[in-house]
């Protein structure tokens, strides 16, 4: 072996050192990364790691105005529950309300304002700073105002309640524009019109389901979406098994069984559009032929509705013998071409039969918001004005009319013709995709606001909505956006908006409420009053509304349409208990929530009666093309035993072009193919008045449903049917 010389020795030492270093680093990099423990710089008030705090606020997932409380840990919102002190929710909440957390932490939420990059409607945007966004919007509005074209600026919002509405009013006055509309697809427009006819006031009374002992619902799905579903759910519980009372009976008259229909004692599949005639026949029977109702005979109602005369007479007997009967109207009954007439007929039935209605006092706050509630006629006028070029700038906040207004009315093209469109929206949805600038608002859980629930619950109630978490992204409260835009317009507008923030504005308004009642608030000073309302989440006072005096008679509902010829089916889209009017479709928790009646997740479907399906040789999952005079869509079939054979029903909510990763291009939107039929009395969109044809396209999809099979498979779940324990479902080929 040759000797190691100096040169070799140095080589070996170098190699050894390099090896040692490499070994050290390899071991170091193979260690698990240490978790860090990061405290606050300065701990916020009432913060303790590991200890939850509950803050009361108001739910904004629909317009019912439920009081909620949110569990906060380490500054993060973890869980939403009902606020037990709030008279609307009384500690309860619904699935859509729970998903308020999904809105707050949604991965598709816009984090900063956006500027359009591609074509209108392409949904391609680039982030910009608030300064750039404010400047470009304010400059545009200011130049219009300077040129005396303030009235050519239109604002279209969803339902804005409470004092936020007043702030918008002030802003619009500053702009010099009268074009401020609140549009909500699910707004009970025909019901309001009917109440104006019957009671002289365009308001909703409190429908006292809780204390009724016979509830007759004409299409109102009060357990899933009608007016205030969480409250009605509790009321239904009390009607059925409240302490110290006899169990109330429930009858549901509707062509497609809704969740409320499934919970009724009796489901009566009357022909769509005949609901008013049935109500009037019952009223006529109760009134004994007097009261100008003699034309509405049981025989006429029976032939129009397809129900038997005995059934209708039984309803009349049940209505008379009940101590506190109540009839309500909603859903398909109020959204067909005779919707207002149907609702008036139900009002007449309540008036004749002594229905359990309680007049609501006028709301403490935001009372004038109803003046801005856009009827569908107002929307059509706005579309016409936009198409005619009389609108130079459009601001759309918190509403998605491009999704909910049928294509037939040309809203999309009308918006495209407006030179400057601003959306105030947390997401790129079908409507905000058309905007030039998107301003990104706080979610409800990050904002100040207040609310007087509409419809009220028979007493005067108002709640303050407080932010329960610090803003997650670089967003601004809607009120702050309005105030800041007002400031940048010019001094005149700025002086009408003298508040720095929404919070200051809200406090100033609540001080007025306090001042008007200072004597009667147990000597509380304003701070104590404000804090007590924040802490309870609600404030209520005993105040009676003016009595409901019936001022006017009947509107004839007419004879229901019997579809024939090419379009031989009634098309009944229905508001989904999961997505509401479609706003919940981008929330993953809602997408994976199975429909309560069909058990389907993630998709659209149409419901067909087994007899119809058999005749057309269709099975579950067969894709069909549903065509109306205005358009067509494709959706798989679900065989649904509880729908009339001449009706095709379809849930509303899916079929968004743009609405984030969970909703975009999923399913189909039934509203897109509706005809331009409106309610002939109120002008409301008659979204249950379209007739369609269906034809198989020869494809099948595997529907994702959690219900497995509708059969018992010998398990005797429904109890034995006759001798030998054979079950009803096993003996029936047509799904019972």
């Amino acid at each position: 072996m040759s000797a190691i010389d100096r040169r070799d020795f140095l080589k070996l030492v170098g190699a050894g050192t390099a090896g040692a270093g490499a070994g050290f680093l390899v071991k170091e990099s193979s260690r698990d990364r240490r978790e860090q423990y990061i405290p606050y710089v300065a701990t916020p008030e009432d913060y303790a790691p590991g200890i939850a705090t509950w803050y009361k606020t108001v739910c904004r997932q629909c317009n019912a105005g439920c009081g909620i409380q949110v569990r906060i840990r380490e500054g993060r919102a973890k869980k939403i529950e009902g606020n037990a002190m709030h008279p609307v929710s009384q500690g309860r909440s619904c699935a859509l309300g729970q998903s308020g957390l999904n809105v707050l932490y949604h991965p598709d939420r816009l984090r900063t304002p956006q500027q359009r990059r591609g074509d209108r409607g392409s949904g391609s945007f680039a982030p910009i700073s608030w300064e750039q966004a404010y400047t470009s919007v304010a400059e545009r509005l200011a130049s219009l105002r300077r040129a005396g074209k303030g009235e050519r600026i239109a604002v279209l919002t969803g339902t804005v309640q409470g004092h936020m509405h007043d702030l918008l009013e002030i802003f619009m006055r500053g702009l010099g524009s009268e074009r401020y509309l609140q549009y909500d697809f699910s707004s009970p427009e025909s019901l309001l019109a009917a109440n104006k006819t019957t009671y002289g006031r365009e308001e909703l009374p409190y429908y006292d389901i809780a204390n009724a002992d016979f509830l007759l619902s004409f299409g109102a799905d009060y357990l899933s979406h009608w007016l205030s579903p969480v409250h009605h759910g509790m009321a239904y519980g009390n009607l059925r098994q409240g302490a110290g009372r006899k169990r109330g009976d429930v009858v549901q008259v509707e062509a497609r069984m809704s969740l409320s229909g499934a919970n009724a004692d009796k489901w009566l599949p009357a022909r769509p559009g005949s609901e008013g005639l049935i109500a009037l026949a019952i009223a006529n029977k109760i009134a004994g032929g007097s009261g100008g109702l003699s034309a509405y005979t049981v025989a006429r109602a029976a032939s129009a509705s397809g129900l038997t005369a005995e059934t209708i007479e039984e309803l009349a007997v049940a209505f008379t013998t009940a101590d506190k009967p109540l009839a309500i109207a909603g859903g398909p009954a109020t959204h067909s071409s005779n919707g207002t007439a149907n609702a008036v007929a139900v009002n007449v039935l309540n008036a004749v039969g002594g229905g359990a209605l309680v007049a609501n006092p006028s709301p403490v706050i935001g009372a004038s918001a109803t003046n801005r509630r856009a009827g569908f006629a107002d929307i059509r006028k706005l579309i016409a004005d936009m198409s005619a070029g009389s609108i130079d700038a459009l601001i759309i906040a918190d509403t998605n009319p491009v999704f909910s207004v049928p294509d037939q009315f040309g809203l999309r093209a009308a918006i495209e013709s407006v030179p400057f469109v601003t959306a105030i929206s947390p997401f790129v949805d079908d409507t905000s995709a058309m905007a030039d600038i998107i301003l990104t608002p706080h979610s409800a859980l990050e904002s100040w606001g207040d609310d007087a629930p509409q419809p009220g619950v028979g007493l005067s109630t108002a709640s303050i909505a407080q932010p329960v978490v610090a803003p997650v992204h670089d967003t601004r409260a809607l009120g702050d956006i309005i105030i800041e835009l007002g400031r940048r317009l010019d001094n005149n507008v700025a002086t009408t908006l003298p508040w720095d923030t929404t919070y200051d504005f809200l406090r100033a308004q609540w001080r007025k409420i306090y001042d008007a009642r200072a004597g009667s608030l147990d000597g509380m000073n304003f701070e104590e009053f404000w804090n007590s309302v924040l802490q309870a989440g609600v404030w209520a006072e005993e105040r009676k509304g003016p009595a409901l005096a019936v001022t006017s008679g009947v509107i004839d509902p007419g004879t229901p349409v019997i579809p024939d010829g090419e379009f031989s089916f009634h098309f009944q889209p229905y508001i989904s208990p999961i997505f509401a009017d479609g706003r919940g479709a981008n929330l993953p928790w809602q997408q994976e929530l199975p429909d309560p009646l069909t058990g389907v997740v993630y998709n659209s479907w149409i419901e067909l009666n087994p007899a119809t399906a058999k005749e057309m040789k269709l099975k579950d999952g067969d894709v069909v093309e549903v065509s109306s005079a205005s358009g067509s869509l494709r959706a798989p079939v679900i065989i649904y035993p509880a729908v009339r054979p001449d009706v095709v029903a379809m849930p509303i909510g899916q079929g968004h072009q743009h609405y984030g990763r969970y909703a975009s291009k999923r399913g189909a939107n039934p509203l897109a193919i509706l005809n331009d039929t409106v309610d002939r009395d109120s002008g409301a969109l008659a979204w249950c008045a379209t007739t369609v044809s269906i034809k198989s396209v020869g494809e099948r999809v595997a529907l994702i449903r959690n219900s497995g099979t509708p059969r018992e498979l010998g398990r005797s779940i429904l109890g034995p049917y006759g001798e030998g324990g054979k079950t009803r479902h096993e003996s029936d080929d047509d799904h019972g």
Partner: protein
Amino acid sequence: MSVSVLAALRTFKKHALIVLAVIVGFTVGHLVNANFYSDDAPVQPIEFSHRIHAAENEIPCMHCHVHAATSINAGVPSVNKCMNCHRAMPGVWESPEILKVRGYWERSEPIPWVKVYDLPDFVYFPHKRHIQAEVECQSCHGDVQEMDRVEKVSPLKMQWCLDCHKTREVENGRDCWTCHK
């Protein structure tokens, strides 16, 4: 024949030695890291000494770890809390470690402490239960008041938890759901 193999290897001998030196060095470096640079006493962003605070100045544990008795987390003091005391202590105001604390405060940055005791997320460990059962902090965390840099002295393995639950006859102390819920 063997002679010819050795002759063939001879030219590679020096290279083989170098490779051997690298392997030996690598092993030594690896072992040094594993044994002398332990995870049990990680270097913290500030050389905070529990010995000075808890032993010399006799500050009780829960003066800083305020939530231990009421929450699942004991809590680490905010930078504000450090500053509150140290503003009143001119003697160490200019010392290098306090300068670091002041730096965090002035930049409004939290101090990124490194966790010494870290349980997996599937273990529910409430500090408050243990404090309420009068378990001394030291029985799990060791003599922290003697440590300049905190060192992990307990394995935090399930057997170790159960041993104590058994000795102290904890009610439901051996139920799975007590800790895994």
